[in-house]
């Protein structure tokens, strides 16, 4: 990401800018220039922004696939797409939206913002973080390359066996599915690990567990869900890959050899349902932050909101069977999952009530982010209510796998996650670039998205009741589905237009937008205390926190922390519960090895489609590269020299130590 011409001035109220410290920190933390510098970069803001930009590109690509499908369905027996193309398109659309857009963009926001919100200089494990991004982008490139080679998966984003097995999907299409899933899930697991460790160990002193911003809570809870859910889908895709792989040919999912196809569905949906909440929970984090800032009041029900998120995460793992209500499973089991599926409405309801209570008792100010949040409430509640209908087994057996479900989950995922995402873009864009997005274009973006969205997806409820099943590439005229499908197609193009309007807004505002300043919204989060865009080291001094709304609760005497080295990439670690200063921790410097390891790992997955020998070969190579990764002192000169202490800089005040906090960090009162 290139930064526009906005001066890096730390504008903490009343603080004297310290040019010497700024110069030293900048030298230590700024990555090397040029393409190599770009590849070795481990700065969390750069990695986070790469995630966000890459995910938006995939969002656009998957959106184009959706438009092609909508053209095909606009009229009965249309011939725009062949059955073969349509099946590839709906599969890749689903895979991209789930694995290459929704999850990565939510993690990207987390990787960019969490360290700023908790007041630290970089995430834990910066090299691992870079590795995760490269895995993700290689997975995405792999999928779309295969699609352009007419080898895109055509078995649905769920790839049910035995359809995806070797007998009914010969060729390499289903292999593309299983390898791409495993690739991108590694990236998700990496991101989750980084986020949890950062949020638990690097918070600014004073940010106790019950003062963490709700968005950071949302990212932490999501990350825990990822850690429990992703291994399940990697199991499913891994076993499927082994069933399909030449010379291996296991029979895990082959009923003819005693394998079980329902086993596949259980492992897939044990991931697949939590996945929805992995996407939705960060979105609720956006909403909580935005509602608080624009209501001009502290969020009502902080504890209830955080506990709701945790409850959602727990219950989210207990209702995967509602995707399998039509399969031959016992009635009593199905009723249990009806109960648990309805139960999850309660934490979601608590959140809606708390946000509405905050808005109604505050002094809300209507800016674009809040506009998107209001739209979110209307659409998400609708999607949630149709979800409750489908929790009932007998109703679900009528609506399952029809366009009613398509309508439902687009209301939940677009209404519930993409609207908050746009809100978050408008909200944090000033922090990223130093310039505001245009409010007037923003309103048009919202209006078009809201109208287009409802025009596309509301008629689908009716289509579902009229018996239109999902994943059909065409339909006969006698069904009477033509009118509603045409409406949906028109709506889809309006959605496309609104995304174009957003793109124009971003391009125009990055160059010519109003200068934002550090805190254009008067927001309470720590990320708003540093410059826009933030310096590479985030904060000149590590801040301390007095309350949940950090900047609103700040007083004149709120101290900052000094004493971290300027010539090492040091961060302050704090205790898990109370965020008391614990010790200084030196992060690894930039390195090319994450990139190399990502090439080897993804190359292994892709080559394993053709030969199992890829796995042992890549294992040896990966072992060597990991050795180089962890071997301190082998870093190239041009990276190390950047970190050499500037002549005249004071030596570090204390050595790296695990001793008592008062030695490690000195409080410097009166500095705010």
């Amino acid at each position, binding site marked *: 990401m290139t930064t526009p011409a906005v001066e890096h001035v730390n504008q903490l109220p009343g603080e004297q800018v310290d040019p010497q410290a700024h110069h030293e920190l900048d030298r230590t933390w700024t990555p090397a220039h040029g393409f190599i510098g770009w590849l070795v970069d481990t700065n969390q803001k750069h990695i986070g922004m790469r995630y966000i930009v890459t995910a938006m590109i995939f969002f656009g690509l998957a959106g184009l696939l959706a438009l092609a499908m909508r053209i095909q369905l606009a009229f009965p027996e249309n011939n725009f797409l062949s*059955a073969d193309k349509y*099946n590839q398109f709906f599969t890749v659309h689903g895979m991209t939206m789930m694995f290459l857009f929704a999850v990565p963009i939510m993690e990207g926001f987390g990787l960019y913002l969490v360290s700023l919100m908790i007041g630290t200089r970089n995430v834990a494990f910066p090299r691992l973080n870079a590795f995760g991004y490269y895995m993700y982008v290689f997975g995405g490139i792999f999928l779309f390359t295969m699609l352009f080679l007419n080898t895109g998966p055509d078995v649905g984003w769920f790839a*049910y066996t035995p*359809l995806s097995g070797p007998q009914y999907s010969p060729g390499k299409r289903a292999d593309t599915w299983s390898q791409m899933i495993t690739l991108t899930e590694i990236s998700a697991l990496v991101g989750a690990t980084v986020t949890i460790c950062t949020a638990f160990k690097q918070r600014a002193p004073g940010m106790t567990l019950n003062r963490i911003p709700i968005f950071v809570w949302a990212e932490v809870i999501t990350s825990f869900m990822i850690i429990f859910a992703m291994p399940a889908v990697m199991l499913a895709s891994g076993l499927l890959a082994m069933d399909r792989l030449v010379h291996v040919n296991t029979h895990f999912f082959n*009923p003819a050899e005693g394998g*079980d*196809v*329902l086993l596949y569905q259980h492992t897939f949906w044990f991931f697949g349902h939590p996945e929805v909440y992995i996407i939705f929970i960060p979105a609720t984090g956006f909403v909580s932050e935005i509602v608080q800032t624009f209501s*001009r*009041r*502290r969020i*009502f*029900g902080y504890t209830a909101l955080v506990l709701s998120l945790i409850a959602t995460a727990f219950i989210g793992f207990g209702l995967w069977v509602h995707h399998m209500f*039509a399969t*031959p499973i016992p*009635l009593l089991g199905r*009723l249990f999952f009806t109960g648990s599926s*309805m139960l999850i409405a309660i934490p979601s*309801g*608590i959140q809606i*009530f708390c946000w*509405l*209570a905050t*808005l*109604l*008792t505050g*002094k809300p*100010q*209507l800016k674009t982010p*809040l506009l998107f949040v*209001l739209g979110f*409430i*209307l659409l998400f*509640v*609708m999607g949630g209510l149709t979800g409750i*209908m489908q929790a*009932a*087994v*007998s*109703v679900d*057996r*009528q609506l*399952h*796998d029809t366009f009613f479900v398509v309508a439902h989950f687009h209301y939940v995922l677009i209404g519930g996650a993409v609207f908050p995402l746009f809100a978050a873009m408008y909200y944090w864009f000033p922090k990223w670039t130093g310039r505001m997005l245009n409010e007037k274009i923003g309103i048009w973006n919202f209006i078009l998205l809201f109208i287009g969205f409802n025009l596309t997806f509301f008629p689908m409820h009716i289509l579902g*009741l*009229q*018996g239109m*099943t*999902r*994943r*059909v590439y*065409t339909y*006969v005229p*006698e*069904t*009477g589905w033509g*009118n509603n499908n045409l409406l949906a197609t028109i709506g889809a193009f309006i959605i496309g237009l609104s995304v174009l309007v957003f793109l124009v807004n971003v391009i125009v505002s990055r160059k010519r937008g109003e200068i934002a300043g550090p805190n*254009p*919204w*008067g927001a309470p989060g720590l990320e708003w205390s540093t410059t826009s865009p933030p310096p590479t080291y985030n904060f000149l001094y590590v801040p301390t926190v007095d309350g949940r709304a950090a900047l609103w609760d700040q007083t004149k005497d709120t101290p900052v922390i000094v004493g971290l080295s300027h010539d090492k990439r040091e961060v302050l670690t704090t205790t898990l519960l109370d965020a008391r200063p614990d010790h200084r921790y030196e992060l690894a410097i930039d390195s090319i090895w994450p990139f190399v390891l990502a090439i080897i790992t993804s190359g292994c997955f892709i080559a394993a489609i053709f030969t199992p020998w890829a796995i042992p070969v890549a294992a040896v190579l990966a072992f060597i590269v990991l050795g180089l990764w962890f071997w301190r002192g082998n870093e190239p000169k041009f990276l190390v020299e950047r970190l050499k202490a500037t002549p005249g800089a004071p030596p570090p005040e204390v050595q790296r130590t695990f001793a008592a906090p008062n030695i490690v960090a000195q409080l410097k009162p009166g500095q705010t």
Partner: protein
Amino acid sequence: MRKVFQQRSVTRALTCIALLRVSGCRGKQNVLDVAGPQAEGVAHLWTGFLIVMSIIWVLVAIATARAAFKCTTQKLIEPPLPHNPSQNKFLTWVVGSLVGVTTIILFAFLFGEFFVARSASAMSQDVNALNIKIIGHQWWWEVQYMDAVASNIVMTANEIHIPTDRTIQLQLDSADVIHSFWAPNFEGKKDLVPGHPTLMWFKASRPGSFRGQCAEFCGMQHAHMRFVILTEEPSKFEQWLADQRKSAPDPKTDEQKRGQHVFMTTTCIMCHSIQGTDAGGLVGPNLTHVASRTMIAAGSRPNTVGHLAGWIMDPQKIKPGVLMPQHTLTPQDLRALLEYLETLK
């Protein structure tokens, strides 16, 4: 609650209004155009959901609209409001009661679902049920009317005749991948999972012609895996079943004889059966009474001579990817074959 449900016309009317009558409620394949007791129970439960959920949504929308109208659009950002503990106490009470109401509503629907599911499963005890075996294939439905006497078993495809007011027990199984049997006017769908044969029950309450289709993605031609259910008075159904038990009539004219010869000497015989002839293939649909069916190609085209000719010559054009190959018959052979197939009533 039962009393409300019994006013069928009221709920039907409400549902229709809710659907804005965009294309009317009486389609051929429709969840709300009920033709059996299960679908009726579900439609009632659904209507209950629709009414309650609509009320909830309207209330939330009103609250959201109030918040929106409360907003100021001034450019200046105001300072944050101070803490207000008494207001928060009041809000806690309000939000707490709303959560309580939500819980009660959810429990009401949980019980509603329990009773609907229980009454639907009561049919499984019926010993006089008509037993039909449905086997899913890529991309057509094999239908077998079971009978204790093996020679009385009737085999047909894609078109299911059933008597009204008699419990139908379907034995569901799949020959290849997962399919899902869905006749929305009668009952919810049930998956045909290879390795997990299963049962479902339903009843038809009125005569008519209804459509259904596969609801689980099953490969390239999933979209064209449809079927027809014809519900008939019991006497008419028994007559149909007796006719189906008969073997195919022998060809009478020379043209028909030539047609049969074409059938037996080209690829047709490798996949299809015609009872009473040498054709015994089990890969494709049984054609013993193919001329009596209303649709061909799993509900894709009406069963007319023209469509049948097109289907035989180039099935890949109508259903790309279908397992039936293209044929190169001379026009004379094709005409004779069609003539013969038309006799298979």
